[in-house]
């Protein structure tokens, strides 16, 4: 009996990382994931900020789930999320002014990140605090990983650097289009192609193994 809840928690945690990755599988939260992912540092900051909001909001929603009437739940969730976003906004402003300028309005726009509202509605409102927080943390981590995947490709191709360190030496000709908006679309679509290719291949191997 003691082992079972632990495994359950592990599953709720990894769900967001891979099987239900918010960006690559569910196609949620695309706006922030493309707008600020022009460098790896920005992506990491955005991912961590979103994770913080996600975990905080899910904890509060889960604690209040019996108090909030069904009819006004979306509005209540939005207000809870907006509160945490305001906290993050002031926090980043206090910690690093450069980062605050780079992310711009997109910190405040975490409010309308569908990943967070989706988690609050689909998971946190139906589960006790501990699993809700674990699930939210996994989702946030999955979101951060996805952002980093997009951001590092864009930074490597567009600036020739990763986390600000030069990779190719001075002779590298930056591929400027990857810093610009179209690059975001291209990199995301390439990742999607890669994932669908991997998934197809796995089902094919599974089928082949099944037949033989």
């Amino acid at each position: 009996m003691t082992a079972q809840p632990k495994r359950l928690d592990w599953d709720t945690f990894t769900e967001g990382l891979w099987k239900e990755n918010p960006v690559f599988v569910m196609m949620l939260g695309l706006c922030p994931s493309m707008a600020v992912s022009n460098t790896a540092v920005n992506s990491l900051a955005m991912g961590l900020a979103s994770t913080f909001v996600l975990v905080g909001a899910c904890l509060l929603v889960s604690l209040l789930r019996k108090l909030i009437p069904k009819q006004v739940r979306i509005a209540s969730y939005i207000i809870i999320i907006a509160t945490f976003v305001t906290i993050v906004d002031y926090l980043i402003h206090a910690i690093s002014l450069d980062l605050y300028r780079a992310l711009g309005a997109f910190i405040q726009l975490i409010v309308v990140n569908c990943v967070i509202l989706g988690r609050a509605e689909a998971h946190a409102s139906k589960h006790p605090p501990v699993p809700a927080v674990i699930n939210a943390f996994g989702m946030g981590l999955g979101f951060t990983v996805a952002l980093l995947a997009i951001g590092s490709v864009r930074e490597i191709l567009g600036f020739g650097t990763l986390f600000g360190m030069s990779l190719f030496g001075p002779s590298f000709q930056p591929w400027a289009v990857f810093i610009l908006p179209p690059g975001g679309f291209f990199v995301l679509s390439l990742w999607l192609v890669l994932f669908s290719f991997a998934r197809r291949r796995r089902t094919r191997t599974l089928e082949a193994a099944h037949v033989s």
Partner: protein
Amino acid sequence: MSVESPALIFLNAFLINNFVLALFLGLCPFLGVSNKLKTALPMGAAVIFVMLVASVCAYGINLLLVRFQIEYLRLIAYIAVIASAVQLVEMTVKKFSPALFRMLGIFLPLITTNCAILGMALFQTANEYNFVQSLAFSLGAGAGFTLALVLMAGLRERLDLADVPDVCMGAAIAMMLAGLLSLAFMGFAGLGG
């Protein structure tokens, strides 16, 4: 206080810094509703309307917040205003055209979480636009969203007939298309100086 003329602000939001293709705002409805031209236009119109209402309300609310020095409530106040404006549009559409209401489905209430609208309200505050400038900005942003939506819907209707490689089906090829469209819109950069 910024001194740009309303016409320039409109053009800027409409073409040069198109909300969808240059600022990545409102991508979820952009990909969700752009399957058919028939739903793209009404959706665009609904967004323009919500933008206008939200812009006017946000301008008034910001004046109040600054007056009482409670700017930290700005985000919560804006979200509440947008949610009510969307509710208004939803009721109107349901009353006047139930068929359209069913066609737009879940994406109508989801305008609330459309980052383009909240983004518009936040940018308008950050740029310190006056009332006329705010109106021009919101109109341009809405029109730009509609333009991108309609263009994309037209392209995707053609795409249905095209022979796409198996792995790229669905979201991946739509993203690629959006990237090309965005590349085309880059050509407008520098138009407004």
